[in-house]
């Protein structure tokens, strides 16, 4: 491609240099295809399904809707940064234990969305959980086990803090 660009993205605390990229590439594309971070998934390319959720300067966003070059100077957090040493977060473990994972395509985006929710609201109501996750489509589970996973994390964290 022509229309090349060189820029640097700050992802999970590390600087990543992007070279020879077409300026029209989305953050999702650059993460997946240029930087070897395929955890964010592309499923709709229009911000409807949440599979590509990353956290950008503290906001959960659809990385398919963000131009990569416009994310220069931002702090980007992806699913790969949650457990850099290979251990699992409580949310990740609860998704496994409660059966919230089937095909798994929506899972990384949901993991990011749940962490983001619980970072901002330690005791969400059932409806707050549903609203917070309503931008993440899951086609396999019907959401029941996902809610069970969130409930488990909330109750374990509450127990630990008491």
């Amino acid at each position, binding site marked *: 491609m022509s229309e090349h660009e060189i820029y640097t993205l700050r992802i999970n605390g590390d600087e990543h240099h992007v070279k020879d990229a077409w300026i029209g590439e989305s953050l999702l594309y650059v993460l997946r295809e240029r930087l070897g971070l395929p955890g964010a998934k592309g499923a709709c390319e229009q911000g409807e399904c949440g599979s590509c959720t990353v956290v950008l300067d503290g906001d959960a966003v659809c990385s398919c809707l963000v131009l990569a070059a416009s994310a220069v100077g931002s702090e980007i957090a992806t699913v790969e940064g949650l457990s850099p040493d290979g251990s699992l977060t409580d949310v990740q473990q609860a998704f496994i234990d409660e059966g919230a994972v089937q095909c798994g*395509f929506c899972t990384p985006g949901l993991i990011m969305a749940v962490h983001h929710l619980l970072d901002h609201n330690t005791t969400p109501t059932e409806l707050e959980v549903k609203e917070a996750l309503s931008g993440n489509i899951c086609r396999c589970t019907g959401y029941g086990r996902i809610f069970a996973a969130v409930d488990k994390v909330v109750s374990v964290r509450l127990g630990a803090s008491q």
Partner: protein
Amino acid sequence: MSSVSTSTRQRDVLGTSALRPDGGAKVQGSFAFSSDLWAENMLWGATLRSPHPYARIISIDTTAAWKIAGVETIITHEDVPGQLTYGLISSDQPVFAKDFVRYMGEPIAAVAADHPETCRRALAAIVVEYEVLTPLADGERALDPTVAPIHPDGNVIRELQIIRGDQSATGPIVVEGTYELGIQDQAFLGTEAALALPDHDGKGVDVYVATQWLHEDQKQMAACLNLPVDKVRLTLGGVGGAFGAREDISLQVHCALLALRTSRPIKMQYGREESFFGHVHRHPAKIWMRHHADADGRIIRVESRMLLDGGAYASTSSAVLTNAATHAQGPYKCDNATVYSYAVRTNNPPCGAMRGFGVVQACFAHESQMDKIAAAARISPVEVRLRNAMETGDLLITGQPVESVAPVARCIRETAALPMPDELSPTPDPLELPGGSGRTADRQHIKRGIGWGVSIKNIMYSEGFDDYSTARVTLQDGVVTLKFATSEVGQGFVTLAPQIARTVLGVDQILIDPMDTSIGSAGSTSASRQTWMSGGAVDGACRLVRERLFERVGQQHNIDPLRLAIDRTDVVDTMGDLRISVAEATLGQRFEETFEYHHRPTEDLDENGQGNCHVAFAFVAHRAVVDVDTELGLVKVVQVATAQDIGRALNPLSVVGQIEGGIAQGLGLAVMEEIIVDNGRVQNPSFTDYLLPTALDAPVVVASFVEEPDPQAPLGAKGVGEPPCISVTPAIVAAIRDATGKDLSRVPVRPYDICL
């Protein structure tokens, strides 16, 4: 349902909620889906598709596209080295359109280039001259013999009639209706994707692809590529859901052809819009039914005429039609039947397999009819279903005896016994009202309704198909390695297969080899068949290995092997003191066995639709509770209660996952999901316009397992994938009728069907 324990199990044997072995990778984002694959020196592939539902191709000019820097090759029908068509049942679909395009989105050419954006520009630069033709968009017209065929194979894909018993039998109750279903999309999240790696000599190819049936893809691809089957090697790439949409060929042939043509690895991945055009959908249907019943509401005869629109190519339409027609009676006793059914070809989107496979369509009609019978007999929806409930040994309208366990009445009773949801609060949170986050509903316009649906679903393939699955089991040094070509699409066979091996062989460390075509076929991950078929194959291979192990231990200890058994992780003498761990007994030893599991044979149907065409059946009951904003026409499904005939819960957590997931898909068909087609043109190929159930739309599910092990099932378990999504749709629609008094006969129910 929220009480499936995963914490108390000790060994992950059958019957426990063993956890997914791929769960860790999936929650960390490191599980390799097909779309995550990458190879050195790789190019991207992309497909040019028809903007017209029906047109004659006058010319295809690729000159300008070839001149774009970064474009490596462009291929059309002229570049297909082998068979020019493919198809699951009949080979009627072109790899690339040649003379005609017959549906909007039909592939015409493919390009390989250095970047997806280069591909997009190259596709835009290909000039195709069309003579646009008037599409055949009405399924009824496809039946008219005076309408010109749109395909050399004609406009009628299959006609099937079922004639049984007294053709004039009637009773004091006669009810009828015409029911319609729109096109539902499987909408798996992981769109079609593959990576093809050509051999250095250009005479073979490795393809990593998300599919439901590796060996069927391999067979069809080899024919089109004009390569020996063993030169087309397929490996399962991580699959992001399937639900029927990965049974047919999509990008497989194109991707392999581009790789062979460029001698470079090719990655193809459909975007969401392309995915809507790239796979078959659930058949839209128009079904007329008339039931004759006695004054007590007992069915005397069912009559039906069914029209399924298969779209432009046959895919599995003929088998979907069999399912629809042979399930017209539902899970009810019925001695007399008159069914005429048709699957037709039109210029609408091609349709084929989707979870429920024809039975979804029949069930919406027969369950709507059951409520009409109940009303005429002045009995409840529950009572009419109990009075007619099928039992083991009853005959289907095909004359086939239901030899499967048929706990229909038990499913209904257990569903009825499940708790009802709380009444809607006088001051509810707007989020829990119809319309959800739109916060548009008004409490005072909300009416609650309750509805019922019950279904019968055949499991496994039908009509004489000699279906089988293959598994190889190796036991060495206390470790089991499993090999099979069973597509893991998310359903959890990778969890179940090790459970089987642990149970049979007393080993805890289980490895699963990659799923590929280096072993015999496992058949398709469809028709709720893999637990039975591939479960049977793994179980069979494990048992053969266990026999070899017992022979060995018997020899070593001078004990008749027939006295030996597995107790937890030990080999024990059932009549003596010997106890030796399997790990110790297999140290330095290697036992390997392959087993091919076949189900019992089935028959073709005769000219009256009579014959033992199905293998086995599973049953389920659903009760839906809905809140409806009658002014806005919005629906909130509050709760779905269900008791499902599962034979035996081999993994309760997985069963719950199938039940809840299937219910959400059935809810989608009931109230929101439809591919809208206008004169052959798809209007909403995106997740913005094709609505899917979200977390706010999901109902509370209360579920009960009906466990009566099926004598014919190798593990006692019936497939659990399809039943959850079948009768939930009519249950929800019945609940909306109950709330509104409207005579709703079409799904999805749209707001204007309710409020206008």
